């Protein structure tokens, strides 16, 4: 596939627009045309507002012209179309969480991340499909349609941020935002052959993100390169007075940090956790990840085996904590103030029962029921409290490992993209997709998935790098160290 505007990096597009080689309106036009051409097959979007996007692009061109005239600086994201997962609020746009519950809901306010992106000149582009309320690993749980993997339309893009990953992989967005509660950014990034980053818990404001599991959710970027991901991360990071869980900590210039590490020739100490290479790991994925580890070694990095002994409890602890929080977070969807309201309810209680029965899909109901159960009187100590203790142990495992290593490398997902419907009937098999990503959320760490090869059948494989708390610069630099020695990202799906 020849280089087109829609599959060019943020960095390059920013340079081109700065040099006057292309306008934001032309770029947006290219992305819109591409979307219209492939969306029938990919179905990454729940909706998009072409007129609004083009108007934003023209406004961007005017801002750039004014900035040029006055000699003021222009941010790298000025005029860049960034796709938004349909669980992050954009004022005046639909906010559905891919649920019948919110099928007709339009949000009246901007999430902090979208406010920040708009403030820097980026274009919030479209509403990207997801598993309903971000619960799932395949985007098959969307109430509105299944997104296809651009590399093989018969397969899933991963999830829950499947639309965010597929749109970037297919050239329908230059970058996108997703949310990651147990792997929902990293796993679809791996399955779609792009870069996906989950920041440290507290790095990015959650205000305006529909909460699934508040103590685990983080918003993060999808992009075609580590550098682009770093640019978007820098734009959305930082303390937000509207989110008490966002940390008061300075946001570094990530790309400058990456460049400084590259200049210094830092030789990373990387940990390989033995628990992440056991049963269930697809041999082709294992081989590709091993090859990536070998590449790091060739570049002078020190590879050490580390142990994360409580890994086997992670999935269990996760499904207790995440479901407990979601059972409470989703209580607000009751048909009283907004959202789906059953037409034939007889009283308040009946309104709750019917609106929620009609509005929520089966996976969401399953998790609400599970979460309600684990918080119930008499079970709280045995489940929720114990899961929190396991969570502490899992975090301690990681911090212990970081006494020896700078970062940890693992597969992102045990398998490449699977076929639609393959695991839909078996929730437990679906839950195991996140086996390598969940621990990172439980421990509040930053993690990134970067492409590290393809299967013989041409499906992308992802390498996960897990960093230390709030050391996103180091994490990105480690990822960049690998990325700059291969050209996986120059491949583009044939659509």
């Amino acid at each position, binding site marked *: 596939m020849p280089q087109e505007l829609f599959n060019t990096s943020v960095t390059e597009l920013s340079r081109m627009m700065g040099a006057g080689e292309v306008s934001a309106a032309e770029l947006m036009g290219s992305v819109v045309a591409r979307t219209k051409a492939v969306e029938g097959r990919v179905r990454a979007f729940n909706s998009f507002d072409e007129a609004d996007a083009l108007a934003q692009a023209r406004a961007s061109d005017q801002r750039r012209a004014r900035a040029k005239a006055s000699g003021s600086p222009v941010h790298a994201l000025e005029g860049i179309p960034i796709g938004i997962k349909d669980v*992050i*609020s954009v004022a005046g746009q639909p*906010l559905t*969480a891919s649920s019948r519950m*919110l099928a007709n*809901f339009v*949000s*009246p*306010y901007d*999430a902090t991340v979208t406010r920040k992106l708009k403030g820097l000149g980026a274009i919030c582009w479209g509403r990207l499909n997801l598993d309903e309320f971000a619960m799932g690993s395949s985007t098959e749980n969307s109430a509105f349609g299944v997104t296809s993997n651009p590399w093989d339309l018969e397969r899933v893009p991963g999830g829950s941020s499947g639309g965010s990953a597929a749109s970037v992989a297919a050239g329908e967005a230059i970058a996108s935002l997703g949310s990651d509660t147990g792997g929902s950014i990293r796993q679809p990034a791996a399955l779609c052959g792009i870069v996906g980053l989950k920041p440290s818990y507290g790095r990015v404001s*959650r*205000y*305006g*993100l*529909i*909460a699934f*599991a*508040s*103590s685990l959710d983080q918003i993060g970027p999808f992009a075609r390169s580590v550098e682009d991901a770093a640019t978007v991360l820098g734009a959305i990071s930082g303390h937000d*007075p*509207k*989110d*008490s*869980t966002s940390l008061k900590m300075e946001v570094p210039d990530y790309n400058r940090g990456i460049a400084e590490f590259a200049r210094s020739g830092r030789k990373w100490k990387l940990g390989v956790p033995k628990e992440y290479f056991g049963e269930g790991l697809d041999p082709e994925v294992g081989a590709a990840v091993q090859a990536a580890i070998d590449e790091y070694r060739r570049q002078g990095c020190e590879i050490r085996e580390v142990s994360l002994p409580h890994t086997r409890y992670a999935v269990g602890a996760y499904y207790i904590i995440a479901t*407990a*929080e979601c*059972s*409470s977070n989703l*209580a*607000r*969807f*009751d048909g*009283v*103030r*907004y959202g789906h309201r059953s037409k034939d309810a007889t009283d*308040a*209680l009946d309104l*709750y029962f019917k609106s929620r029965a009609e509005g929520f899909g089966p996976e969401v109901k399953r998790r609400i029921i599970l979460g*309600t159960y684990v*918080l*119930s*009187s008499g079970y*709280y100590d045995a489940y*929720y409290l114990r899961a929190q203790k396991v969570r502490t142990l899992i975090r301690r495992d990681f911090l212990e490992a970081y006494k020896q290593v700078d970062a940890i490398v693992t597969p992102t997902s045990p398998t490449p993209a699977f076929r639609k419907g393959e695991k839909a009937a078996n929730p437990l098999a679906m839950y195991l997709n996140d086996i390598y990503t969940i621990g990172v959320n439980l421990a509040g760490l930053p993690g990134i998935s970067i492409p590290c090869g393809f299967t013989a059948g041409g499906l992308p494989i992802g390498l996960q790098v897990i960093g230390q708390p709030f050391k996103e610069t180091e994490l990105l630099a480690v990822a960049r160290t690998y990325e700059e020695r291969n050209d996986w990202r120059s491949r583009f799906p044939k659509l």
Partner: protein
Amino acid sequence: MTYEAVIGLEVHVQLKTHSKMFTRVQAGYGFPENTLTDPVVLALPGTLPVMNKDALDKIIKAGLLLGCEIAPVCKWDRKNYFYPDSPKNYQISQYDQPICKGGSVEVELPGPARNVMGEHKRVALTRIHLEEDVGKLNHGEGVSLVDFNRAGTPLMEIVSEPVIRSADEAFAYLTALKTVMIYGGISDCDMEKGQLRCDANISIRPVGQEALGTKVELKNLNSFSFVRDGIAHEIRRQAAVLESGGKIVQETRDYDGQTGTSQSLRSKEMAHDYRYFPDPDLMPVEVDSAWKEAVRATCPELPFDRQRRLQEQYAIPYTITSVLVPDRELGDYFEEAARLCGKPQAAGNWITNDLLRELGAAKVALGASKVRPAHVAALVKLVEDGAILSNAAKEVFIDMFHTGEMPEAVVARKGLKAETNTEDLERWCAEAIAANPKSVADYKGGKESALNAFKGPVMRAAKGKADPKRVDETLRRLLS
């Protein structure tokens, strides 16, 4: 059988803060429906709570005033239940770690007479915690509407130990609690505006029995007298049930103050499982000693401490202090007036009798009164110096209440100055004596009342501005 009541009260008090508990939209009462809302109050998808520090300051202040132990960390929990007035269908509250523990409220039980101080007692507290208020349902014909103006208002729950023994004690407890809250600027505690709400847990047991009886929770006690009447009614109801051989059922009952009856709302079996868990959206807040001390520095003297001090420092009686103290502003007013004139008893009398009477008649708040402490002090001085007579002083007071002029100006304008010219007084007295030899003889003959015969002519000559005391003295001197 004689029974003893065991009563514990749960009192909800809205904190007087500018904004709501977890968002910065205004808190208030009496606004058009659903105007004090924002995306957070309405629990729109994606919104998050952010704590109001002023609310935490105020509950810490309440805790310090009531002698509670202040927790080192303020932790938040979610109380999960579905109700249309609760936008998130969970309430952010404090479950296992309330911000205040222990403490007590000093109460004054009813005395033997209205003007005699009653016995004082301390009602121990279990805990005080902070939470958010819910909205309000308005039920109409076939439709119920929700007003979220109240939703999210900072709300303090004050739980007493089951140590209250009667309806009167419960009334005294609420009165004392309200006074402390008003003194601290913590809440206005206006029950009509829902700023103070009370539920009572009531059980009875035979006198002398240690074990507690089955408790009943009484709700909807929406005025102080309904609290008293409702509790008295419930004690009678339980005693009647036991007397007739029945058993008390653990339940929640709804008291109707209009009819003085109650009916069962729900039984224990239908109690909620609130599925409390720590709110992951809010970080625990550390309350260090510097914070506590900063709040302590803003704590006023407690009402009963002030009452004891006023009695001691100014030597004024209970009849005056019991009027002055419950109203912090009135107490301040008095102390200012007493300081300016140095005559606390006189100042106290003017304030508790004349000022309150006039304010009441004119429906004017103390803060809006044109008569300030300086007016009262100046008036007290004029009377004390004999510059005006007491009946003239009453006239001066009413005048300055309406005009706001200082008493000296009123006296001058109205020509009310008392006659103080000794020469004139001596002459008028001498003339009166000279004109009435019969009465002189009667007086000298031991008839004390004969003196009055001279006073009329003297007063007439003085046009009523002579001080009767001095007239009396002068006549006696001249006749001796």
